[in-house]
């Protein structure tokens, strides 16, 4: 899942990016409002974490412009303003959630995950695709009774495929949702990681779960 963090206070920006990456997200970061809006408009992020007080363009204006241009991205607003009025303004302008600084990092993660589930219309924090089970909270994966150890990148890929299980997912989609803006990935990186993933979840003679749709992409599970 790919996130955008727009936060100008460097220590917070850096720790958020680091923590979110370590939690398996692809994270793009900026500290400038204008740049943030440009990022948000030019990429299909799953969730944007938005500070309200920003140089260049403030958070509420970014939110307004995003919504005015019809972007349905989920936005989690981070702010030091905690009055009811501030919250109402933020939510009314189209924010999906609101977190007042200082916050617990775990709570931020939980809220981001909740927003992601909403993005993919999934209420259950445990995804089941046939006998494959993915716990979105603990990021652990089982095939049948056997737990499968995945690297963060592999997990991110599987999670994205599972969120859209039964649909054909293009390489571009995968690229946009699993990889960061400035990652120096080579062109067939998606195929390579699909290969790694298949090897891990389809081992010990279990039936294949990821199917290749020629020229279009991949499907996890049975086509819906």
């Amino acid at each position, binding site marked *: 899942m790919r996130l955008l963090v727009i936060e100008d206070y460097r220590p917070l920006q850096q720790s958020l990016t680091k923590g979110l990456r370590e939690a398996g997200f692809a994270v793009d970061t900026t500290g400038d409002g204008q740049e943030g809006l440009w990022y948000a408009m030019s990429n299909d992020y799953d969730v944007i974490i938005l500070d309200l007080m920003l140089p260049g363009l403030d958070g509420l204006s970014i939110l307004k412009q995003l919504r005015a241009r019809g972007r349905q991205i989920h936005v989690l607003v981070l702010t030091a303003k905690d009055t009811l009025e501030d919250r109402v303004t933020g939510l009314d302008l189209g924010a999906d959630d609101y977190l007042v600084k*200082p916050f617990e990092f775990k709570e931020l993660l939980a809220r981001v995950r909740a927003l992601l589930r909403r993005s993919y219309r999934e209420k259950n924090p445990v995804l089941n695709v046939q006998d494959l089970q993915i716990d979105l909270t603990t990021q652990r994966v089982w095939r049948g009774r056997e737990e499968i150890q995945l690297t963060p990148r592999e997990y991110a890929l599987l999670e994205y495929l599972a969120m859209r299980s039964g649909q054909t997912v293009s390489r571009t989609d995968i690229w946009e949702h699993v990889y960061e803006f400035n990652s120096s990935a080579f062109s067939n990186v998606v195929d390579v990681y699909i290969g790694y993933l298949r090897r891990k979840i389809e081992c010990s003679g279990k039936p294949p779960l990821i199917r290749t749709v020629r020229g279009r992409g991949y499907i996890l599970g049975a086509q819906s």
Partner: protein
Amino acid sequence: MHSLRARLLVGIVGGMILLLTIFSLIIYTLTRRALINQLDASLLSTARMLAASVEQDNNEIELGFEVQAMPEFQKAEHPTYYQLWRQDGTVVVMSPSLSADDLLYFEGSSAEPVFQEFKIKNGRPGRAVGFKFNPRIAENDGKSSQPQTKIQALTLVVARDVSDLQHNLQMLRWLLLIASACTITLSFFVATFVVRQGLNPLNSLASEISAIKENNLTVRIATASLPAEILPIKIRLNELLSRLECSFNRERRFTADVAHELRTPLAGLRSTIEVTLARTREADEYQAALSDCLTITENMQTMVNNLLTLARIDANQITFRCDQIRLAKLVNSSWHTFSHKALERGITFNNRIPAEMTCSSDSDSLSIVLSNLLANAAEYTNQDGQIWIEAHQANNRTEIAVANTGCRLINDQVSHVFDRFWRGDSSRTDTGIHCGLGLALVERLVRALGGSITVELQDGGIFIIRLVLPA
């Protein structure tokens, strides 16, 4: 007497008592005098009539018979008394009404009639008139040639019982007393009612004021129909409320600003620590995280110190010493902190203060002032820009000017630079590092040092802060 109502009541009723007493006394005195004058006139005319009827025939003194027979001199309910003396004190004649008791003899009664109060028999009050006169000489028929006998001067006293008059006067006294008492009692009730009615607006004002709570200062006293005397109170109170509301709002905004400015670095601190602790890391990662935390803490400490200093100056808790300060040296040591960063951005710094110039002020405070001014300049000067500082002394005053290029503020914004938590960029830059307290502190310190501070924006983005310090 603290109650306005009691004071008004006492004033009104006391005034009534005083006025009624004075008027009653005047009425009583005038009436009494009129009655006595009337009595005196009547007494005198009776006396003159009596005197006129007295005849001296040789040595015989005679009172006209017809006069003696007048009923008023008989023994009746309220008779008139008379008695006539010779000069040697022997009684010539006395009225039948007197029975045998003498009337009062007026010693030395002169030709002028003299009036006198006295007690007649059985102690009843009486009033008498007495005078000396010479009786008429009886004309003896055909004996006019007879030599004149010596005329004997006589003293006549005529008196009358005045118990009726006294009684009437007593009635008048009672009448006046009762009328006054009734008027005063009634006026007390009327005054109580009127005063209560009159003070009602005060009560309604008081109840309106008591309804105003410290958490709802937007309320204004609304009572529309206040009397002219209380209207100014309402207006002043509403003005006071406005000022209070302003200051409460300012305080609230200030607290909110402080909370906001502390929340962001706290969030950074917390998230840095939490993310770092989330898993086991290499030593250099811990080191980097700890050094980040230290920077955040230092910035927070600076801010808290600035806030504390501001609060102390506001509360007059800071005492200033008087040090001889070598300005140029203090400027150089203040600049030292920022010189490295400024050099990286190609900023040139020019200290134009003469090396020997001294000024007497509190060196700690002046150091804070200069550091903040230079920090501000270093922060907002453009890449490869310039900062310079000058000082002049004249008339026992030192003027210091700190100038820098590359100011992006416009004229309307310049006046806000000393506002607490104000920043040029409305969407706020450098959260957690510059919270907009530095210049506010500078302004407050300079004022506390007895100086003044002004800002000036010159063409080409040259931003100048001038401070004038005593000596």
